[in-house]
C-alpha cells in the first residue's frame, strides 16, 4: 500500500466522478422513448376478498426530513385507497405497510428489513438518496423490488437489478426551466446559482443547471452554497447581488428555498428566479408568501396535467389536504401505481397464487420493468436492460411559474412550458 498511489488515486477519483457526470448528462439528452401506455382501468364496485398483497412504504415519517416523508405518506395512502376501490389486484386487496425510516441511513435499513420480513412484494422508499444507498442494497440482495419515490442522485438504479425509481433525475427538466427564463427575459447575461450543499437532490441538480448556463453561453457569475437547515442567506445573497445577476437559479428544498427567495426579494433583487425540482411544492408558500410570486419552477410533476388519473388524484388530494398536490405525493402515488399495475399484469399472466413469495418478487420486478404506465406524472416506463435498468423514462416535464393570490398565503403553479 503506497501512500503516493493512494494520493494519485484520490485525485483520479475526483476526475472520474466529473467525467461520469458528463457521460450521464450526455446520455440523458438522447431520451429513450416508450410505448404509449394504456390508461388505468378502474373496476369500481368489485368486492375485495382473499389475503391482502402487501406493499411496503418506507419513508421518513419523523426527523427533519419528515416534511418530505409526510407528503409521500399522503400520496401513498391515497393510492392505497384508490386502487382498492378500483378492484385491487383482480379482486384481491392491497395493503400498504408503513415503516418510518427517520432521516438516517440506519433507520432506512431497519425499516426496509422490517417490511421485507413482513412479506411485502415490493417497497416504495426511502426518502433521501443517501438513505437509498444504504438500504437499497439490502432489498436488492433479498430480491425485493424497490421503487424509489424521490431519489434523484446518480447511481440509484445502478445499485442493482431490483432497484428502480419513479423520480426523474433532473437532466431534462432543468434546461427547460432556464430556457423558459430566457424567453421571459432575453437580455439575461449574468447568472447566479445557489444550491444546498448538504442535499443530494440539490447538489445533483445544480450540476445540470450549471452546465445548461454554460451551454447557453450565459455567464455563470457565481455559485453560492448553503445548507438545507440554514434560514439566513444574507451573506450568499450579498455576494451574488454584487455581481449584478439577471437570473438566479436555486436548487434546494421548500423551507430553505422559500427563505432564500424571500430574502433575495427583500434585498431588492428584481430579476427572474428559477427554482429547482425541490421547490415544486405548495409548502414554499407559507415561507416566502407574496414574494414567491413569479418563481419559475422546473417540474417533474404538474397538477395541471389533464390526464384522467391525475385529475382523479388531484381531486382526492385536494379534498383531503385543501391544497394542490405536491410532486412528492404524486411520485409516491405513481410508485404504488406501478406496483399495482404490474401485479395485475402478472396475475393475468400466471396467477399470483401460483407463485412463492421470492418468485413473486422477482417476477414482479421483471414485469414492472417491461410495462408502461399512465400515471399522474404522465406516461412513464423504465429502462429494462443493462446497468441502468430501473431508470425512469418519463415523457412529460413541465415548467411553471408561481402566481400568488392577493392574500399572500395561497398561490398556484401556472403552466408555461
Amino acid at each position, binding site marked *: 500500500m503506497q501512500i503516493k498511489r493512494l494520493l494519485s488515486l484520490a485525485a483520479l477519483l475526483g476526475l472520474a466522478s466529473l467525467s461520469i457526470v458528463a457521460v450521464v448528462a450526455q446520455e440523458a439528452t438522447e431520451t429513450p422513448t416508450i410505448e404509449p401506455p394504456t390508461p388505468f382501468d378502474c373496476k369500481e364496485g368489485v368486492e375485495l376478498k382473499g389475503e391482502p398483497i402487501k406493499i411496503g412504504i418506507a419513508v421518513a415519517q419523523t426527523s*427533519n426530513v*419528515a416534511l418530505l416523508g*409526510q407528503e409521500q405518506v399522503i400520496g401513498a395512502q391515497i393510492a392505497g385507497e384508490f386502487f382498492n376501490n378500483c378492484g385491487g389486484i383482480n379482486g384481491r386487496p392491497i395493503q400498504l405497510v408503513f415503516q418510518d425510516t427517520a432521516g438516517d441511513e440506519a433507520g432506512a435499513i431497519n425499516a426496509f428489513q422490517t417490511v421485507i420480513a413482513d412479506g411485502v412484494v415490493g417497497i416504495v422508499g426511502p426518502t433521501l438518496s443517501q438513505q437509498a444507498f444504504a438500504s437499497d442494497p439490502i432489498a436488492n440482495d433479498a430480491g425485493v423490488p424497490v421503487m424509489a419515490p424521490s431519489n434523484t442522485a446518480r447511481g440509484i438504479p445502478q445499485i442493482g437489478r431490483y432497484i428502480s425509481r419513479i423520480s426523474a433525475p433532473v437532466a431534462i427538466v432543468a434546461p427547460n426551466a432556464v430556457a423558459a427564463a430566457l424567453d421571459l427575459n432575453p437580455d439575461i447575461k449574468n447568472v447566479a446559482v445557489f444550491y444546498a450543499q448538504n442535499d443530494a437532490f440539490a447538489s445533483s441538480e445544480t450540476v445540470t443547471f450549471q452546465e445548461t448556463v454554460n451551454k447557453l453561453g450565459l455567464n455563470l457569475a457565481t455559485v453560492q452554497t448553503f445548507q438545507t437547515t440554514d*434560514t439566513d442567506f444574507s*451573506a450568499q445573497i*450579498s455576494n451574488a447581488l*454584487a455581481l449584478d445577476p439577471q437570473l438566479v437559479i436555486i436548487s434546494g428544498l*421548500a*423551507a430553505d428555498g422559500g427563505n432564500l427567495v424571500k430574502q433575495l426579494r427583500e434585498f431588492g433583487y428584481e430579476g427572474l428566479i428559477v427554482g429547482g425540482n425541490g421547490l415544486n411544492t405548495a409548502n414554499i408558500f407559507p415561507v416566502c408568501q407574496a414574494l414567491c410570486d413569479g418563481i419559475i419552477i422546473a417540474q417533474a410533476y404538474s397538477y395541471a396535467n389533464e390526464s384522467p388519473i391525475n385529475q382523479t388524484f388531484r381531486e382526492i388530494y385536494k379534498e383531503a389536504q385543501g391544497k394542490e398536490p405536491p410532486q412528492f405525493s404524486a411520485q409516491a402515488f405513481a410508485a404504488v401505481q406501478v406496483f399495482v399495475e404490474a401485479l395485475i399484469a402478472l396475475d393475468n399472466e400466471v396467477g399470483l397464487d401460483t407463485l412463492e413469495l421470492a418468485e413473486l418478487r422477482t417476477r414482479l420486478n421483471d414485469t414492472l420493468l417491461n410495462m408502461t404506465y399512465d400515471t399522474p406524472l404522465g406516461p412513464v416506463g423504465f429502462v429494462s436492460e443493462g446497468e441502468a435498468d430501473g431508470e425512469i423514462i418519463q415523457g412529460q416535464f413541465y415548467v411553471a411559474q408561481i402566481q400568488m393570490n392577493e392574500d399572500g398565503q395561497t398561490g398556484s403553479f401556472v403552466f408555461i412550458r
Partner: protein
Amino acid sequence: MTTNLFFQQVANGLAIGSVYAIFALGYTLIFSILGIINFAHGAVFTLGAYFTFTLTGTAFGFNGLLAQQKLPFSLWFPLALLGGALLAGLISVIIERLAFRPLRRRGADSLLTLVSSLGLAVAIVNIIQFLVGAEAYSYPSSALNDILTPFLFLFPDGKVPLALRVPLTEPPIIVRMVQVVIFATSIFILIALTYLINGTKVGKAMRAVAEDATTSSLLGISTDRLIQFTFFLSGFVGGIAGVLVGMSVGITGPYFGIAFGLKGLAVIVLGGLGSIPGAVLGGLVIGLGEALVPAEYIGYKDAVAFAVLFIVLLIRPQGLLGRVFIQKV
C-alpha cells in the same frame, strides 16, 4: 471584496449575529444561575413560535391530530406574541419541574440534566409533529407592521418597508426590517436582564444562588422559587426570540429551534458561559465571522465559524467575557 460589499456583509453579519444572540440569551441565563446547559431551550423557542401562531387564531394545516383546528378567537399580533412568550415561559417552568428539579434533589451529575433536557427536547419536537404536522407555518403578513405600531410615524404612509436602505455607500447598504427589530430587541433584552440581575433584589438573590445555592438557601432565599423564576424568564425570552425569528424566516417545522441549538451553544461558549453580554457579543462575533467568509469559500462558512471558536477557546479558554475560576475538576 469591494468596500461596499464589505460593509454590506458587516451589516449581514450583525443581523444574523443578532439572531444567534437572541436565541442564546435565554440559553445562557439558565447557565448563569444553575451552571448547566438546557438542551430543551431550542424546543421552548420553537414552542413560543407555535403558541403565538395558535393565538393569532389561524387554522393548522391538514396533518396531525389538530389538523384544521383553530382557536375560536384571534389575538392582535403583539398580544399573541406576548401570550406565546408567556406560555413558553410556563412550559419552561414545567421543564424545570420534570427534568431539572428531581435531579437536583438527587444530587445528580450535571451531565445527567443535560441528557434529560435533551430527552425532553426530542419529546417536544415529536409531539409538535404529532399534533400539527411537519409543515411550515407563517404569521400574518401584517405582523411586522403590528409590532412596530408605536413607531409607525417614522415611516412614510405609515407602512413598514421590508428592508431599510442605509445610504452610507453607493449602492446603499440593505438591512431587512425584521432583522433591525431582532437586533433592537436583543439589545433591549440584554439591558433589561443586566438591570434585573445587577439592579434589583431578585437579581441579587439570583446571583447569590448562582454563587452558592446551599448557603443562599440557609440565608433564607427560596432557591426553588428563584430557579423557577429563572426558567420562566429564560422561556419567556426564548419564546419572544422564537416568534421574532419566526417572523423573519417562517416557522420552518418542528425542528425550527433545534436547528439553532448547535450555533447557540457555540455562541454562549464563545461569549463566556453564563455571561449575558457575552451571549450577545458571541452571537455578533460568530455572525460577522460567517458573513465575512469570501464568496468563493462560502461552502466552508460553518467550518469557519467553528474554527474561529476553536482558536478563541485556545487563546481564552474561558470565552470572551467569561470569568476565570480555578476549577477543581
